[in-house]
């Protein structure tokens, strides 16, 4: 990361490219989840709890292998199961590891009103700083993936950190370390994207999944967690993965035009009132004219 400060991207009045550009190793990290080789063992769920020190929560049985309906403030990693009947009548048990996607354009961060409660590191990790969190829950409204969860005990919001504490000292996230099938990979964004595309091509060409593809949604500028899906055209099948996620339009409207118009209107209002007072002055009561019963 420190190399980024010395790596020059553009130089003024310089003929040709910047010397040394692109020689440094990319430091944008990425988690690759290959749903086609996940066996739903939930070792990643356990590893996540172990590393982050949370208690084992009560599970909910809903005629499925899924541990609980959705992630919780103290349960950041959940395998979502879906029994999917394909057009030819065959059954597929779809499993997807659900966690924070670490968006390039994070809706949580955009919606957050608390200074320093959510940060995005240069390596792409979006992390909550609970000490600065005020517990308003706006991040929950900003997130298109339903990830940030409110803790009534702490009155703050929590989510997957992509094991920022591990990654910053050169370790892979706990879920990656524990995965027994190798369906989870961790590396730079470009390496993971390449690996994912290779796997998707393999699925298309050799395994009969014509719609296999990589999920790295454009709507949020891409994500630092990407999926390989058998059916990239229907991501909703995988436990409600949104097809075209984006920061909600109301959050955009609220944070951009409304904020500026509103602030301008408030300042304008105060200026207008001061102007009025200087132009017309105070209203004073007049002495009663006793003869006058009615006016106008």
């Amino acid at each position: 990361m420190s190399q980024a400060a010395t790596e020059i991207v553009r130089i003024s009045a310089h003929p040709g490219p910047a010397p040394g550009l692109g020689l440094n190793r990319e430091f944008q990290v990425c988690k690759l989840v290959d749903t086609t080789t996940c066996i739903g063992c939930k070792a990643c769920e356990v590893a996540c709890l172990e590393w982050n020190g949370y208690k084992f929560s009560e599970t909910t049985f809903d005629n499925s292998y899924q541990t609980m309906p959705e992630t919780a403030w103290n349960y950041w990693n959940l395998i979502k199961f879906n029994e999917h009947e394909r057009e030819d009548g065959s059954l597929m048990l779809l499993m997807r590891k659900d966690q924070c996607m670490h968006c390039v354009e994070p809706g949580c961060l955009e919606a957050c009103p608390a200074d320093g409660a959510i940060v995005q590191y240069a390596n792409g990790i979006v992390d909550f700083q609970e000490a600065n969190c005020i517990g308003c829950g706006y991040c929950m409204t900003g997130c298109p993936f339903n990830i940030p969860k409110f803790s009534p005990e702490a009155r703050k919001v929590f989510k997957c950190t992509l094991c920022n504490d591990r990654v910053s000292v050169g370790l892979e996230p706990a879920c990656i370390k524990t995965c027994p099938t190798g369906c989870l990979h961790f590396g730079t964004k470009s390496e993971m994207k390449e690996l994912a595309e290779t796997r998707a091509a393999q699925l298309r060409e050799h395994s009969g999944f014509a719609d296999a593809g990589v999920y790295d949604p454009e709507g949020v500028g891409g994500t630092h967690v990407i999926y390989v899906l058998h059916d990239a055209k229907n991501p909703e099948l995988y436990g409600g993965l949104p097809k075209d996620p984006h920061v909600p339009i109301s959050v955009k409207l609220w944070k951009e035009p409304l904020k500026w118009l509103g602030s301008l209107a408030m300042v304008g209002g105060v200026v207008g009132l001061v102007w009025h007072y200087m132009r017309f002055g105070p209203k004073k009561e007049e002495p009663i004219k006793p003869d006058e019963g009615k006016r106008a």
Partner: protein
Amino acid sequence: MTSGAIPRPTTAGEDMIPRYTLGERVNHWIGALAYIYLLITGLAFWSPYLFWMAVIVGGGTTARFWHPIFGLVFFFSVCRTYWEWRGDMKIDDADRAWSKAIGHYIENEDDKLPPVGRFNFGQKSFFWGIFYGVILLLLSGVVLWFTEYVPWELRYLRYAAILVHASVALITIGLFLIHVYMSAIMEEGSFASMIHGKVTRAWAWTFHRTWYDKVSGRSSSN
């Protein structure tokens, strides 16, 4: 009528008539203080440049905890005001005539205005703006208060709530600014009347002549 032991700078020694009951005044100031708290904390959540406002009232977490509770206080204060004043706040033909001549009011040519009752059209507009505003703020505010209980399937409620809450709050801020300016700065005697509950006869005659005629017994009609 004599003035009491407490000095009343704007009204000392004058012949006063009652305008607001003690209950109305206490309720007004409960609502006013609640609104000021809501304004400070709400502006803190509104813009990062104003987040320091949350710091002066105990920090962001504290502000987030109390904002909805003070919101309920404000709501109930407005409800009580509605219950007491709903009759006085009906907009009638006299108000419509007054609203057509509002330019004279803005330019302090009050003698050219048609007479009005206890409240003028501007005050009534303010009241109804706050009344409907607080209902929308409450509905959207409950969604924001308990975001974690709004199911993901109903997330459109969350999306609507953040826009409605901010937009309506802005409208009430506009109304609030005008209200404070008119009553505390511009129209002399108004602020004192919300403290002591009384106005001078001349004040009532100048600004609310129909009401003055009624309470002073000058008017034969109604």
